């Protein structure tokens, strides 16, 4: 049995279930308690778990991220919410220099089972500082695991798995897709970290993507189908560790690949996927790997900038036709 839930409610259920299951799990961040979360993900949690476990912080990202790291080193399982990942930049010291390195520095004596979560990516006309995508930044760091998923069912199962995982994990959600709906199974389930999902099967071209660009890829695939082009859409779900096998297997079938990646092009996820494909499926490629990224610029406020900046179905279709050597 399953029900339709928004991403917001699916994430909320994950927090609720894990907090009921394990008393060491607590939620901390700006506006998470009395305000029910800036995007209402933690709605009702304060009521059920009280101020001890659902904790409003001052605006002090570096401080409360570090408090999370210390609490994790000392036996708790913090879930640290960032209002958006743009603000988590202030906390990168604790995430990168400490959460990611506690285990190695202590030669295994201290683990750091912590979840940092919040929305990543552009969310309309919010201008330069509020429109950034962080999957590739954090995916670059050994010691961290990075999840980025907007499918409600999978996001729920991944968040639950992340809370139970003993390693530090960064989860990227989406500000504009908290209301995105999907069927969510009833009852207890986990989604394995490190496994991609095939959202649509196809034979002519592989589209690899994650987070809200999955919807863009699916729209493009639907359009392409009308023109007789069968696209397979892979949702990475986890950025690190990346599920290379699923990508390679698909490319061996389709022989063509386009990577759709909201992050900036330089040294990003699209580059990582392209490297893996040329290394492990070189002989299967009928065309160079092409990527569709956000523009190699900051994102300004005007609507014309948003349109120009982000990947969209039109840009994806153009890229697919390029790898298919279709000229119409």
């Amino acid at each position: 049995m399953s029900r339709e839930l928004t991403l917001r409610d699916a994430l909320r259920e994950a927090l609720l279930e894990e907090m009921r299951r394990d008393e060491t799990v607590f939620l901390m961040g700006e506006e998470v308690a009395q305000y029910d979360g800036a995007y209402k993900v933690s709605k009702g949690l304060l009521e059920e778990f009280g101020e001890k476990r659902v904790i409003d912080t001052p605006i002090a990202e570096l401080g409360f991220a570090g408090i999370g790291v210390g609490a994790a080193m000392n036996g708790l399982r913090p879930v640290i919410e960032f209002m958006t990942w743009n603000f988590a930049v202030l906390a990168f010291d604790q995430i990168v220099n400490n959460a990611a390195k506690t285990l190695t520095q202590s030669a295994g004596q201290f683990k750091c089972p912590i979840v940092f979560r919040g929305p990543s990516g552009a969310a309309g006309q919010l201008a330069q500082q509020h429109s950034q995508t962080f999957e590739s930044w954090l995916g670059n760091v050994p010691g961290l695991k990075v999840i980025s998923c907007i499918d409600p069912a999978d996001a729920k199962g991944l968040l639950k798995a992340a809370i139970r995982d003993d390693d530090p994990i960064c989860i990227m959600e989406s500000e504009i897709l908290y209301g995105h709906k999907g069927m969510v199974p009833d009852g207890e389930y986990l989604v394995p970290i490190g496994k991609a999902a095939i959202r649509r099967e196809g034979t002519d071209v592989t589209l690899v993507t994650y987070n809200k660009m999955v919807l863009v890829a699916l729209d493009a695939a639907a359009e392409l189908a009308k023109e007789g082009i069968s696209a397979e859409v892979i949702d990475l779900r986890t950025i690190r560790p990346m599920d290379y096998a699923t990508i390679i297997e698909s490319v061996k079938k389709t022989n063509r690949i386009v990577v759709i990646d909201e992050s900036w092009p330089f040294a990003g996820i699209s580059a990582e996927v392209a490297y893996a494909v040329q290394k492990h499926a070189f002989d299967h490629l009928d065309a160079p790997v092409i990527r569709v990224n956000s523009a190699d610029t900051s994102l300004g406020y005007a609507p014309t900038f948003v349109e120009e900046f982000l990947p969209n179905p039109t840009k994806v279709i153009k890229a697919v036709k390029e790898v298919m050597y279709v000229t119409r």
Partner: protein
Amino acid sequence: MDTVVEKKPGTKKKSAASAYGKEQYLFWYELMLRIRRFEERALMMYGQQKIRGFCHVYIGQEAVSAGLESALIPGDGIVTAYRQHGIALGRGVSCRAAMAELYGKETGIVKGKGGSMHFFYAANKYFGGNGIVGAQIPIGTGIAFAEKYKGTNNLCVTMFGDGAARQGALYESFNMAMTWKLPVLYICENNGYAMGTSVERTSNVEEMWKIGLSFEMPSKSVDGMDPAAVHEAIQEAAAHIRAGHGPYYLEIKTYRYKGHSVSDPAKYRSKDEVQQYMDLDPIKTVEDLVLSKKLASEAEIQAIKDRIKEEIDDAVQFAENSAYPDGKELFTDNYIQADYPYITD
């Protein structure tokens, strides 16, 4: 230690309130009214989806901008956060350039690139609206550092909210500014809330002016509903700074009548509380004072109102008639290097 004084907000120095002449009061009145009417119209246009994204209005806090602008001298700089339309208008950004920016048009103060949170105006040393809470505290300190380095007599007003004051950046900045005696005037605009979080929920230290004490920085609390009180406090602070004594810190007690941003229903506070502050409205107070002291006639006040209405109508027309920037303008202003090789595939 230098003068460290606590002044309870709300206890206005009555003598000072009437110590100013017609010109001064009308300056404050006109600026505050311009800001108020500008933002009321901006909210209307937001409702019509002409303006998008975040929009944090300054309604209720106008006396701070007014008192600042009358007390500073040309050459002084200001940097603040995203709740900045009022500060920018005070700095001389035109209603046209401001409204066009909110619309995201190419004629905006930053060509449609910044929107509501990020106006900049180099000509009048307005170093911008910053969207990252607290980021401008060290930046303003650095602007002051440069003034001292260059040997000028200027200072930099570094403004931040009560919420921003809890960021670690404040500690680091206050400490360096005091150690190096930088010409920086820190202003905490304490409007009681950071989004839905009231000041007393963020710290053991509820009186924001006291934050300066551990740095032995001269620190004061000021009534932010009165432009004269703000003006005076800033003049005093500026004199201290220009004498080479280093930074000064003012907590200016104020209030935002509206929610944090357009999307905030502000359920975390009572109607009574909002009304209490609206009863202290600086625009109304100054208007009443000017009329009762016969510093200006009803007709003069009406003329100001009419002029501002025209100005705002004109700004909206201007914004409506302007074009959006070409999407390709994304590829400008990222680098000074004109032929920077962007990755385009």
